[in-house]
């Protein structure tokens, strides 16, 4: 082929909404996938300069180092309250929280439910990996029955520890919640669906019609004590039966213009 006719075509670029730093996440952890999906959605919507994120306490406490946009770091579980404060005084900005299961479904239960109840016009990305990652693998409110953690060494016994909490099922009951869905990051097909859902959640906020949350079933190979490959299989075999994927609440205004 004539060299002069060669055309360089860019087929992939790292998202503008991500910084050029190496993350501290463990190898094979799906936090990286979740970050990438959010960043791509923000890029595609062209809202990076109008977005403020709120990081939680947990493994993603340093999310502000990885997202190339304004960010706040909240107290444990309080991200929805902090996001409420930010959003109420900056209604023209996109405000989202990124929270794990301990942060959102345990210590932050009051803040997340009331943000949903108020129909707070924020977006929540909820990473559910059924364990406390940063503190080294203790039982989370989403730990499944029988699952071994460092604080349930014999496996989660429902007689002693009670049952896992399903957040989409709870939050979808609130009139203020407009978009509540559960997706999974355990394989490529599901990752594509997760991205569409994240887009729809930010579109919900754009339309100003209330609270949106995407729950992402995620892995924790380090604290589950399994290989990355097995961890993805574990999501499919043990988490999806307990936390069924699906749309739990879709506001009628979204159904009309839905893209996914």
């Amino acid at each position, binding site marked *: 082929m004539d060299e002069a006719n060669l055309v360089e075509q860019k087929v992939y670029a790292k998202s503008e909404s991500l910084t050029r730093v190496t993350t501290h996440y463990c190898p094979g952890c799906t936090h990286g996938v979740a970050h990438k999906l959010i960043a791509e959605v923000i890029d595609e919507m062209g809202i990076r300069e109008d977005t403020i994120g709120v990081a939680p306490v947990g493994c993603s406490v340093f999310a502000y180092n990885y997202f190339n946009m304004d960010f706040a770091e909240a107290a444990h579980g309080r991200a929805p309250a902090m996001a409420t404060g930010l959003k109420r005084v*900056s209604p023209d900005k996109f405000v989202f929280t990124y929270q794990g299961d301990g942060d959102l479904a345990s210590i932050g239960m009051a803040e997340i439910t009331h943000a949903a109840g108020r129909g707070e016009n924020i977006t929540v990305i909820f990473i559910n990996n059924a364990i406390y990652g940063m503190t080294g693998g203790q039982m989370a409110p989403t730990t499944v029955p029988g699952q071994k953690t460092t604080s349930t060494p014999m496996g989660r016994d429902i007689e002693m520890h009670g049952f896992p909490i399903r957040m989409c099922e709870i939050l979808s009951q609130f009139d203020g919640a407009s978009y509540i869905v559960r997706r999974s990051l355990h394989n490529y097909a599901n990752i594509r669906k997760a991205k569409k859902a994240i887009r729809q959640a930010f579109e919900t906020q754009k339309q100003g019609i209330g609270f949106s949350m995407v729950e992402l079933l995620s892995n924790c190979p380090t604290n589950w004590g399994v290989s990355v490959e097995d961890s993805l299989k574990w999501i499919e075999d043990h988490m999806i039966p307990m936390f069924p994927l699906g749309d739990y609440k879709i506001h009628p205004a979204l159904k009309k213009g839905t893209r996914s």
Partner: protein
Amino acid sequence: MAKELLKGNIAFAEAAIRAGCEAYFGYPITPQTEALEHMSQRMPALGRVFLQAESEVAAINMVYGAASAGVRVMSSSSSPGVSLMMEGISYIAGSEVPAVLVDVMRGGPGLGNIAPSQGDYLQIVKGGGHGDYKLIVLAPATIQELIDLTVEAFDLAEKYRTIVVVLADGSIGQMMEPAELPPMRPVRPVEDRPDWALTGAKGRKSQFISSIYLDPVEEEVFNLKLREKYRLIEENEVRYKESALEDAEIAIVAFGTAGRISQSAMKMAREEGIRVGIFRPISLYPFPYELIKEIREKVRAILVVEMSGGQMLEDVKLAVEGRIPVHFYGRMGGVLPLPDEILEEIRKAKSELVEVSR
């Protein structure tokens, strides 16, 4: 502007509005609830933010969020509610965002009651939340001071990027007296928000607000930076009022309502020929240690009066360094000290002086 008859809780809420407060987040608790109610009506009418939070925990974190966006923001509460805010206060101190909090103190510990108290002194002045931090704490004794200090609190909060607490008590919150409100200041336009604020990374690098320094050395460097800020505050922001100390043999040291009640006791004592003066700290942090050191050289005894078991007493003793006797009279549980009770303590202190001189 003319004086009007104002209730304390409404006076500080309206003063905050006139100081340009853009957002209020709170939770109902007696004896400060009228402030929340006033805000619920006035703030939306002015196109500003009012939100009743699900708890004081949420309220202070909403304040944290709004403060991170660079707006003038406040909350108000009373003792048990303020206890719940301690986590958020520590985070705000650790992130250096400005905010204002009014604590209308009530009797405790625990649920206690709804009567006036000064039992939050140690919690507010010495910390309460975790970590090495200080808050500027201002204690009013009248409705006029409550108004003026609330306005000043917003300016100081921004000047030092810190929380400023106006430490009032149930009687100041609930009583009515004539006072003058300040003129309305305009709210700061969005484009004038401070350069550190989270406003979206348009035309600039992205930035974050956080209180985490995982590396101990970095955390210590940050702590030293805070220390330097506190040193500046100690140097420049001491506030107090004194009366009749020129010829005094006994000085009463009391803040807020206790200081005000002590005025009556002082007059009664002087009618009996006991030369009493009053030193009333207004800034509880920074505490006027140096001024009390000067007073200890002039008087022969100090009487500390508080609506607590003796909390500020510790700071007065630190300043006096054992040089002269320090007496204490305190009422707890929401009971006010009465002038004749304080007079009795003055007489006791005086009689001990006579014994010493014999």
